[in-house]
């Protein structure tokens, strides 16, 4: 399997005021195509900085980063934007959908900024297809404020998928969701991963990380643990268990 993400001795130092903050201090990491990785760590561990670097929103101060075989560590703002558009899909904690813009148009957004633009009809087709994948094709005309949190996050996932990225990046995707919805969203990710999509996710919740295949644990800007997940949670099973628990509560009441 080829490495989609390859970090070599990556450092990131922030110069804020008098003290330099060493957010990432030499991370070497390879993520192969088709993997499902959770990057974990407490706040201040450097996992968000890692996410920004992997997401091409920031550049490493030292070391190199190959994304899909291309060295992106020295690209300028516009080149990084083009890479983000073509190779990466983003899912955020706060959904980050454009308000008063329909689900369909939100999903079409990345295609607006693609270099070789498709016709409006083809864009629409792609967007609807992406919504179908996350099971929201029937909500295409709805505005974000008419959708539940889980549905909004699924629209965001569809937006992340629409340009067929090499990697789907998720930053605390379940942070704003309740347990049940979190499991549902993780189910969507698992299904996408089974279809061959590489997913990298940042989370600090152990039970969420358990849905992935590999856990990378960071502390003080370094990778301290990198292990495959042994007893992997399966979203469908977890959902059933949740339902049973709910039933039990109802019966006892």
């Amino acid at each position: 399997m080829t490495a989609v993400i390859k970090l070599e001795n990556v450092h990131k130092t922030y110069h804020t005021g008098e003290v330099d903050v060493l957010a990432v201090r030499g991370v070497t990491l390879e993520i192969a195509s088709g993997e499902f990785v959770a990057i974990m760590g407490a706040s201040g561990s450097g996992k968000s900085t890692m996410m920004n670097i992997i997401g091409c929103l920031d550049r490493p101060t030292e070391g190199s980063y190959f994304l899909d075989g291309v060295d992106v560590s020295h690209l300028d703002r516009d080149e990084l934007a083009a890479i983000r558009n073509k190779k990466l899909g983003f899912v955020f904690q706060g959904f980050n959908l454009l308000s008063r813009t329909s689900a369909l148009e939100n999903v079409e957004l990345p295609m607006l900024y693609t270099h070789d633009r498709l016709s409006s009809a083809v864009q629409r087709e792609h967007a609807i297809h992406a919504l179908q994948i996350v099971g929201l094709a029937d909500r295409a005309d709805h505005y974000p404020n008419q959708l539940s949190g889980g549905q909004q996050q699924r629209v965001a996932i569809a937006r992340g998928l629409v340009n067929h990225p090499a990697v789907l990046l998720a930053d605390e995707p379940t942070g704003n969701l309740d347990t049940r919805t979190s499991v549902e969203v993780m189910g969507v990710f698992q299904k996408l991963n089974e279809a061959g999509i590489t997913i990298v996710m940042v989370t600090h919740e152990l039970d969420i990380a358990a849905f992935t295949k590999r856990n990378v644990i960071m502390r003080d800007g370094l990778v301290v643990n990198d292990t495959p997940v042994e007893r992997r949670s399966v979203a469908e099973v977890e959902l059933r268990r949740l339902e049973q628990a709910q039933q039990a509560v109802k019966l006892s009441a």
Partner: protein
Amino acid sequence: MRITATLRMALRALRRNKMRSTLTALGIIIGVGAVIAMVGIGNGAKSQVETQIASLGQNVVLVFAGNWSSSGVRSGWGGAGTMTVDDALAIAREVPGVISVSPEVRDHQQILAEGQNWYTTILGEGPDYLDIRQWPLQDGAMFTDQDVRGTTKVCIIGKTIVTQLFPGENPVGKTLRIRDIPFKVLGVLSPKGLSVMGTDQDDVVIIPYTSEMKRVSKRTNLGSINVQSASPDFSDSVQKSIADLLRQRHRLGQGRDDDFTIRGQQEIADAATATTRIMTVLLGAIASVSLIVGGIGIMNIMLVSVTERTREIGIRMAVGAHGRDILLQFLIEAITLSSLGGVIGIAMGIGSAKLLSAIAGWPTLVSVSSVVLAFLFSAAVGVFFGYYPAQKASRLDPIDALRYE
């Protein structure tokens, strides 16, 4: 990114904040409207003055008798008394480019007709006078060379004389008396209105200059000579030739002042339009200030909008928008606001100019060029005042923008 998609996005963003967009555009609407209306008023005044100047006639050169001085005492204009009918005939004969000449004597007399009387201007003129002044007759006919040679007692009269002496009648063929001498009315002039100086040009009785000099005022010299040159190109050379000719005829040696004054129509026109031109520029400048204030309003709102939509900018950048895509989006919003304001402002400006004409009776003239200019200027205001906020948006860091609450 395609312009149409950006434009659609801009329009949607503006629709989202209808009240705000309207108020922002209102600044430009008032600015552009004021410019259009003010410049319209200025141009209207200018064109009115131009019509008055055109009423002087076409390619007219006026030769006035000059002043005269003797041992320190100076007479006023016309006091020299050196300009004669022969001078006028010589100009007609000898100056190239002159097509007609009318010697002029001017007098003021009490006139009588049918029990009414009126104090008016008596003009002694040649038969070509009306052609030179481009002044058609409304009724009757002009006197002829024969009348001039024969010092006939005939006249043509202006509209004011008709209303004062012959109310409700056709005066042609009737008789009026100047200094008790009966003159037969041959024709009535079409109304000409006020002159550049504001005098009533229709309050006049025109008679052959010979009759004026021999019968009415008993003068031997002319007050002025109306000369018509063939075309505006001749104006300068004609003026110079007349000056040379008159100096020679009046035996004015080197170092002696002219005893006459020559004015081309263009000079008179320039002097008269200068004031209105200054007024137009001044009005336009004052109105432009409000357009600039409107532009600052746009800048203000765009800055607010950029701050409010920081997260949106972050999202767009995260999914691949370049800095210039964001720049273009906000710039187009600003330009849309300002040019929409411009279009409405133009309509309002034309409307208020028309209203002013209708209510205050001021002449207004909204030219196509001022409309086009106002529109382009309003769009330029959008670019100028929208650029800074748009640039600010385009330079945001996507990570900070995404985190912005």
